[in-house]
């Protein structure tokens, strides 16, 4: 088992390295001089040259890549072309804010999705199950900004004016210190993710409920509650954990649109702003961070999958 997990870990590391190459290659493709972008039109040649040296722009691409990669490990994400300051400082608080948002969304989406999914699977074919199916199909189809705009219209600007439509962090306070402004972004993200969890949970649960060992458990006289909790549910965990992981990983990307919509001061917001200003160093950093979260969550899911499966667990 340890071997399996280690192997999986190695794969993740390899993927992250490859991702860093892709992201870095993006800079090389870009026309223009980052040093000039930072210093502006009127910069003197001496200052440009000095900054180029400082940013290693005078080195070969391979050297630059290695220096950049080395920097990542010590938290040095480079220099922002728009602010001229270090990218790490720009992003450090935003990472926390984004994580909070993702965690809140996950904390709502996972239990709700799992519960509704199980409920639906156990009531297959009933009207309530069909209602669940239709709502999940509908919700799953909608792009996140559509859901977000509808929520804003409903709860913030037009119908009820009960919740803040945008996020603000008044001086000295972090975003999460004002919980009311987390509600709409969290809800939007959760609503995007929940249908997938429901559908997967329902399908897996339905499949497990039809399996031989569940039939056997029933034929052993095991009470239905126990059939579900002891026999069926543990089986659904593996596949559902994968889907939940994919969805949580999706959150890492999904926050981009939602943060933009709600002006939530997170990574996604930083990414959009950086794209609008063509701040490649920030785009690189955010892409790498999001990809890392993505890979990490998938890794965790696979490890959970390995641990949930006694066959793999007992494999030496």
């Amino acid at each position, binding site marked *: 088992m340890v071997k399996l997990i280690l192997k999986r870990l190695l794969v993740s590391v390899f*993927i992250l390295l490859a991702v860093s190459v892709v992201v870095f290659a993006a800079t090389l493709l870009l026309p223009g001089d980052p040093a000039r972008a930072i210093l502006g039109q009127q910069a003197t040649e001496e200052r440009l040259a000095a900054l180029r040296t400082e940013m290693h722009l005078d080195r070969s691409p391979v050297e630059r890549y290695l220096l950049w990669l080395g920097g990542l490990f010590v938290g040095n994400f480079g220099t922002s072309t728009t602010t001229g300051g270090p990218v790490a400082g720009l992003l450090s608080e935003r990472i926390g804010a984004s994580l909070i948002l993702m965690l809140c969304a996950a904390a709502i989406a996972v239990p709700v999705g799992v519960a509704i999914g199980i409920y639906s699977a156990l009531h297959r074919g009933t009207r309530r199950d069909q209602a669940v199916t239709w709502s999940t199909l509908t919700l799953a189809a909608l792009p996140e900004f559509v859901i977000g*705009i509808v929520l804003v219209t409903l709860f913030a600007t037009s119908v009820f004016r009960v919740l803040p439509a945008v996020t603000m962090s008044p001086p000295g306070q972090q975003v999460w210190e004002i919980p009311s402004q987390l509600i709409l972004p969290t809800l939007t993200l959760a609503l995007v993710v929940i249908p997938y969890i429901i559908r997967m949970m329902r399908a897996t649960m339905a499949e497990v409920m039809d399996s031989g060992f569940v039939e056997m458990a029933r034929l052993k006289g095991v009470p239905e509650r126990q059939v579900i909790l002891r026999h069926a549910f543990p089986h659904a965990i593996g596949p559902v954990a994968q889907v939940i992981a994919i969805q949580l990983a999706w959150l890492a990307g999904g926050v981009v649109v939602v943060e933009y919509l709600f002006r939530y001061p997170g990574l996604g917001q930083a990414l959009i702003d950086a794209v609008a200003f063509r701040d490649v160093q920030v785009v690189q950093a955010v*892409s790498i961070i999001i990809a890392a979260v993505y890979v990490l969550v998938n890794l965790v899911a696979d490890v959970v999958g390995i641990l949930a499966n006694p066959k793999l667990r007992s494999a030496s």
Partner: protein
Amino acid sequence: MSTPDLDPEVVATPEPGAVETPPKESATRSRPLPARVWAQTQGKVGVVLTAAVVLVALAGPLLAPWLTGYSPTEFADRPFQSTGVFGTDNLGRSVGARFLAGGLLLLAYSVLATALGLVVGCTIGMIGGYAGGRTDSVIMRLNDIVLAFPQLVLALLAIVVLGPHGWVLVTVIGLTHAPRIARVARAATLGVVSEDYIRAAEMYAVPRTRILAREVLPNITGPLSVEAGLRLTYSIGAIASLSFLGLGMQPPAADWGLMINENRIALSVQPWGVILPVLAIAVLTIGTNLLADAVARATESTTVEAS
């Protein structure tokens, strides 16, 4: 087929061992896929919704001046007025006309991106699944690298480097779909490759490309068409999202996503500029998603039969 006692197909056509009985006419010949899709409520609703929006998107650009009295770029009034049926947008153009004209590009780009994703994904997925071994692991690792980026992030990265052009959108959305489609194609191919008819073809030394095209491809169309439907839904969502972020379709193009971006500021006073495109995108994606679901259900029943 481990519990054949249950399978109604088998119950209906028992094998009594009487091989000499005259060959019976097929009672179990499956109906064609469209009919099976249409037979479901999901399928019907999906077809109707999708068709409605597609119709608007295709015919809209031609009908816009005739129906609304304005061309999509003509100025009808000052911005955000209630002139005409649906009022004016952020530049004072007719929302109705721009709505009618705004679906075509989105639809075309989404279809192109999905098609690109399908061709690329299907090819590499099938090759990976069929070749197995090292080829497979190399392909799948490459896949994982692309999959390590959320789709939108990769799209943004591409847009930063290449600019928000139509071909960039189509290519990047299509290529980010490809690994996901490849996974499905590969899984489906793996299911098919273990079948003996593939071994039979191998045995007869049928060229590998022909095996993929004739033996494998027709047998994975079920999952692939489901995936195509899903990917189309996501393509629409992704391209609309990028336009919404102001990084997709560029002004002065009439486009639903862009309309939302331009007009959402006046949501409370001139809601049509947002509501119409939001509705259209919602109806379209819901339609394609229902359709994909119906196709999934329809192909599931045949997969069971064929296994």
